[in-house]
C-alpha cells in the first residue's frame, strides 16, 4: 500500500504531534517528520498542511529574525491545537488498534 495515500489522512495529526513539544518553522517541521520515519512526506504537503491548520485556528505563528539567513516563520500549537491533537490522537489510536486486531485475527504478521 502506498504510504503517501495513508499520509494524506494522518498528516494533520503528525504535524500537530511534532509541534507538541517544541515550536518549529516549516523546514524544521519537515525534517522532524522525516526523522520520525515519515520519509515520503512531501515538502509542499507539509507547508500546505501548516497553512490549513493555521487557517483553522489550531496554530499560531511568529517570526524569528535569523542571523544567518532569512527570517523564519515559527508555528506553535495553541489551545485549540492541543485539543485537536488529543482528539485526533485518540481517534487514530482506536483506528490503529482496530486495524491491528483485524489483521491479527487473520494471521497477518506485523
Amino acid at each position, binding site marked *: 500500500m502506498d504510504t503517501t495515500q495513508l499520509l494524506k489522512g494522518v*498528516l494533520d495529526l503528525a504535524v500537530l504531534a511534532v509541534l507538541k513539544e517544541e515550536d518549529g*518553522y*516549516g*523546514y524544521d517541521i519537515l525534517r522532524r517528520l522525516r526523522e520520525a520515519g515519515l520519509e515520503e512526506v*512531501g*515538502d*509542499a*504537503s*507539509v*507547508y*500546505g*498542511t501548516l*497553512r*490549513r491548520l493555521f*487557517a483553522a485556528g489550531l496554530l499560531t505563528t511568529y517570526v524569528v529574525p535569523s542571523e544567518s*539567513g*532569512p527570517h*523564519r*516563520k515559527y508555528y506553535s500549537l495553541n489551545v485549540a491545537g492541543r485539543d485537536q491533537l488529543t482528539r485526533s490522537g485518540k481517534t487514530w489510536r482506536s483506528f490503529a488498534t482496530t486495524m491491528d486486531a483485524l489483521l491479527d485475527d487473520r494471521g497477518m504478521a506485523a
Partner: protein
Amino acid sequence: MTVTGQEIADYVDRVRAALADLPPAVRDELTEDLPEHLAEVAAESEGSLVDRLGTPEAYAAELRAAAGAEAGAGRGRRRRRLAAAQARAGTQLRALDIQLGPLLGQSSVSEFLRPLRPAWWLLRGWLAALLISVVLQQPSGLLPRLDGSVLAGLFLLAGTVLASVWLGRRSPGLQGWPRRLTRLGTAALLIFSFGVLVNVDQHASSDQFGSYQEVSVGDRYDSIEDVFVYDQEGRLVRNAQLFDQNGVPIRLGWPTCLSVDGNMPPPRNAYPYCPDRAPFGPPVPAAPAPAAPTVSAPPAPGPGTATPTPSGSATPAPTVTPSAVPSESTPTPAPTR
C-alpha cells in the same frame, strides 16, 4: 550549492503562476515561505530543485491540496482548470517573449514593443472615433464624421485620442473590472479595425476615384491595344475621340508604336495611336470606285439592214475586249457596325 538564486526565483514564479487562480492574499500566504524553503533544500543536497521536489506545477498542486485551498466560493473545478491553463499559457508566452527578443535586437519582445505603446494609444483613439462615427451611422471613410461634418469629426477624433492617451498612461494601475473593461474594449476595437481595413481595401481596389478606368476597364476590353474608326465610306478616321454618355473620355489601349519623330506617343484620347497598323489597309483614295469592265463592241447588224457582203474581211463576231482597269486596291470593306 549547485542551485542558483535564479533557479529558486524561477521555481517560485512557476509555483505562483500555477496558483494564479487563488485570491492574491491566499496565494501570497501559501508561497511566502517558499523561497526560504527552497534555499534550505538547495543547501542541503545536490541536484536541481525539480529533481528533488518535482515540477513547480506538481508542487503547487500538492500545496493546494494539502492546504485545502480552493479558488474561492462559487468557483468550480472548470474555472480552476481554466485558470491553470491560463497560467501555463502565460508561462509559455513569457518564455517565447524572451526567446524571440534577440530577433528584434532586444532582450525580449515586450521590451521591443514597450516604446511603441504611445503609438498604439494614438491608433486606438482614432479607431474609437471611427467606431463612434460608425455606430451613429455616419458615412465615414478614414476620417470620422459627425452629422456629416468633418470638422465635428475632427473634434471627436481629438477627444478620443486624448482619452486614449490618458487611459494608456493610467491603465497599468487599473485593477478589477476597469481593467477587464479596458481589455474588452481593446479587443472590440481590434476586431472593428479589421473590418475598417477590409472596407478600405475594397474601396482602394475598386478604383472608385479613377474616372477614366471606371468606364474603360472591363474584361472585354482588356485585350484592346488600339482603336480604329472608319467612316461610312470605309475611310480610316484619324485622331478620333471617344466619349461615353457623360462626356467622359473613353480610354482604350495604349500606344505600341513610335510616332514620326521616333518617340513613344503619350496616351491620349485620339485614336488610333498607330494608324499604320490599321487592320483593313490604307485609306481608299477619293477617286471614283474601280471602273467596271468596259465592253466595246461594234453594233450588231440589225435585222432590217442585213446586207450580206461576201467580203473576206468580214468580222464575223462582235469582239469583246475586256479592258478592265486593274484596280490596285482590294475591295473596300464597309464596316457594318
